[in-house]
């Protein structure tokens, strides 16, 4: 339920009614899907990446997805071998035009990818602008394109990124955003190259090249496509920390002056707030929608509204990047104090997991009494807090801060 709080944000001159967008993927593949998403409250759509169908006919391997489950938790991560849109180019632009016509106040972003010639980008950019798109996203980041030199291969090369951005930018008058691949050691040179080519914004992350499993009987990695598999795009909850890292890397660097659109593993309003605080101005989502449908935007909207009110922000813009100054290099972290774990015996159910982790993975600081209650030897505890992290009982293990043992010894 929307609480009627204004969550709009200006991004590259385009007003997004709220920062929540579909990211370019099958969730925004057709007019009907995007229209339903708008109706349910999404503020923007980055439409499924479109190429030129007369250059290359796109088809997808099948099955194209493989999940990573953990215990009873389904789809903590998702691998896909999907290409860009397999629909006729014309149909996609007709759909984009209809979307803009029927939803003039929503933000519409066309994602494009040239496949064979640099001039493809120019053509696609023109078509996107003609269809009424508010912005363009250049897909420099799909990790499983079957056309050599495209997707993240292009996105790993600063010269190519700068050139293609520049071609796209000069072909149209609407803002252009460059979508980055996380399959690099450092995203900054590539983001700066896009900026140099004229990009108005950076979006990140596309999927992480990965393998989610192997079929044990046939010794075939998954998804098993006719007896073979490829390492390919991994998304969902599992990649959120990687997305947060790259967004904050870019937000921290003063040379990069253009705004950011964050994505990777966004499910809840808390994920949204984290991306915003670390520097993203708009947010994009795919895997959570694949898993739960468009309805989840209601909870993002209501939760973010509550957060704004509770923390006294007057707009989403005010909170963008608020956590950035608290990200430093590891060598800048203070070593003056340390944590000591504190276990509340009134809450403890006596499972002993804290004992095991401390004995076999930490400081051997926890012992178990006859009544099953764990006791922390404060001189030995070095404050890794793994015991707190695995404890199944809410607020049972907390910690206090003391002068660092190694500093005072």
């Amino acid at each position, binding site marked *: 339920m929307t609480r009627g709080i204004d969550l709009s944000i200006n991004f590259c001159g385009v007003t997004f009614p709220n920062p929540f967008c579909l990211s370019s993927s099958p969730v925004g593949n057709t007019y009907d899907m995007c229209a339903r998403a708008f109706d349910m409250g999404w503020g923007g759509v980055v439409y499924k990446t479109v190429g030129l169908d007369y250059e290359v006919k796109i088809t997808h391997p099948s099955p194209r997805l493989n999940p990573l489950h953990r215990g009873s938790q389904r789809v903590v991560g998702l691998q896909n071998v999907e290409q860009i849109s397999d629909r006729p180019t014309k149909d996609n632009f007709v759909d984009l035009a209809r979307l803009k016509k029927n939803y003039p106040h929503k933000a519409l972003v066309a994602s494009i990818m040239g496949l064979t010639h640099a001039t493809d980008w120019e053509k696609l950019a023109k078509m996107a602008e003609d269809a009424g798109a508010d912005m363009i996203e250049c897909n420099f980041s799909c990790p499983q394109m079957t056309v050599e030199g495209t997707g993240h291969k292009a996105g790993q090369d600063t010269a190519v990124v700068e050139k293609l951005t520049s071609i796209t930018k000069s072909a149209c008058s609407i803002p252009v955003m460059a979508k980055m691949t996380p399959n690099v050691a450092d995203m900054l040179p590539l983001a700066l190259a896009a900026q140099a080519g004229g990009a108005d914004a950076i979006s990140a992350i596309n999927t992480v090249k990965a393998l989610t499993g192997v079929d044990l009987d046939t010794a075939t990695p998954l998804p098993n496509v006719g007896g073979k598999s490829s390492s390919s795009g991994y998304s969902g909850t599992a990649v959120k920390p990687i997305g947060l890292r790259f967004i904050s890397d870019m937000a921290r660097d003063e040379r990069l002056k253009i705004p950011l659109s964050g994505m990777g593993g966004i499910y809840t309003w808390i994920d949204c707030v984290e991306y915003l605080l670390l520097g993203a101005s708009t947010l994009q989502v795919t895997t959570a929608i694949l898993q739960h449908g468009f309805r989840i935007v209601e909870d993002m909207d*209501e939760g973010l509204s509550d957060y704004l009110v509770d923390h006294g922000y007057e707009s989403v813009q005010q909170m963008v990047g608020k956590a950035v100054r608290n990200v430093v290099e590891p060598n800048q972290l203070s070593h003056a104090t340390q944590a000591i774990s504190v276990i509340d015996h009134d809450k403890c159910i006596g499972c002993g997991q804290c004992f095991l982790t401390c004995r076999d993975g930490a400081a051997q600081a926890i012992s178990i009494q006859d009544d099953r209650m764990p006791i922390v030897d404060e001189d030995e505890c070095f404050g890794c807090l793994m015991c707190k992290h695995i404890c199944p009982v809410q*607020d049972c293990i907390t910690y206090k801060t003391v002068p660092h043992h190694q500093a005072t010894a």
Partner: protein
Amino acid sequence: MNVQQAIDEANRCLLCHDAPCSQACPGGTDPAKFIRQIRFMNLKGAARTVLGNNPLGGVCANVCPTDDTCVRACLRSGIGQPIDIDGLQRFAVDYGRSQGVKAFAKGKELPHKVAVIGAGPAGLTAAARLATYGYPVTIFEARKQAGGMLRYGVPETRLTVEDLETDLNEITALGVEIRTNTRIESKNAAAKLLDEGYSAVFVAPGLWKPLALNIPGADLDGVTTALTFLDDARVAPETIRTLVKDQFVAIIGGGSVAMDVATTAIRLGAKRVYALALEGMTELPAMGDEIIEAMELGVVIKPQAQVSKVLGENGRVVGIEGHETEWVVPGKLTPDNAKKVDGTRFSLKVGALVQAIGQGATEAVGGIITPFKSDRGLATADKQSQATTMKKVFAGGDVVRGAGTVVDAVGDGKRAAEAIHELLSEGQVAL
């Protein structure tokens, strides 16, 4: 449940499309939505969903027979245990309130006043909803305090006064005026209220006339009814303690109210408690968990048994006499279909007898709505709008449906409020 437990439980939910749990709620609560909200960490939103739908959302979390409604419908049962929907509802409400969530607010004041008769779940729900639209609402309540059966019937072990009053306070904070100690009993009372300037009347006085058996000895001291027994157990527990302490107590009836009497009697010190019912063990109207709870407390259930006589000494009950029965037509569970089985006569020594065989409308109710279109001694009202045959007069809750549930009454209150709002906002009603 704490936050962690609630999230764990919500994570078991399948987040079904077109969720059957939500369709199964007579009060229109949307469990699938508030569970999804918990799952997606929208914890305050979950409270808004529960209370926005049902101002007695806190009460319902405690008293709803969910095994018969949402939990029974839960598709998770197909692959294991159903979701603990009542637990999650309690969590949502408590958590939301701890964070200062206000699910509803008083609407901009409108000119039409509305009168409500009875401050039970039906009347309270209608009043709350009308107040959020902006109508000034006055509830006329016969008893000393608001709540109806929630305060004077449902045992405290299931619903504490504190939980009841938390919900009540939010309703009165909307500006709803509750005139307690004000029994409406004059003839044509609804018409008179309209004459006095109320633009619509919602009649929700519940069923407060205990039914009693017409058998020899029924007038002896120590023979009472479930309503009186449970009412006293809440407002004057000492009288009930004196009545049952160290006594053998018999209860006539096998429904939920009989089980409430039985467990209350045990808690207040009865030595042995019998519940005698005409139904067979698997036919008892009480819910499975109520029967199990009673039996675990030591209640002896005597199925297919009929009490025919109360034995007395010096004007006080000392025992009962009866016989076992069988149905003439199997499956037709009405007293006139029960037949005595020869050779099964029994007698029990008891110091108190409680009749839990149902309740009907009090005489006063017949006079409120005129003409009182009566069906089984109940008021009749349209199922969609709760409208009665009298213009601008609506009715709902137990007085219309017979002994129902809190959430049924809540549903009626909501429907009546919507219909009254429709009537008054159409501007057809002159001030």
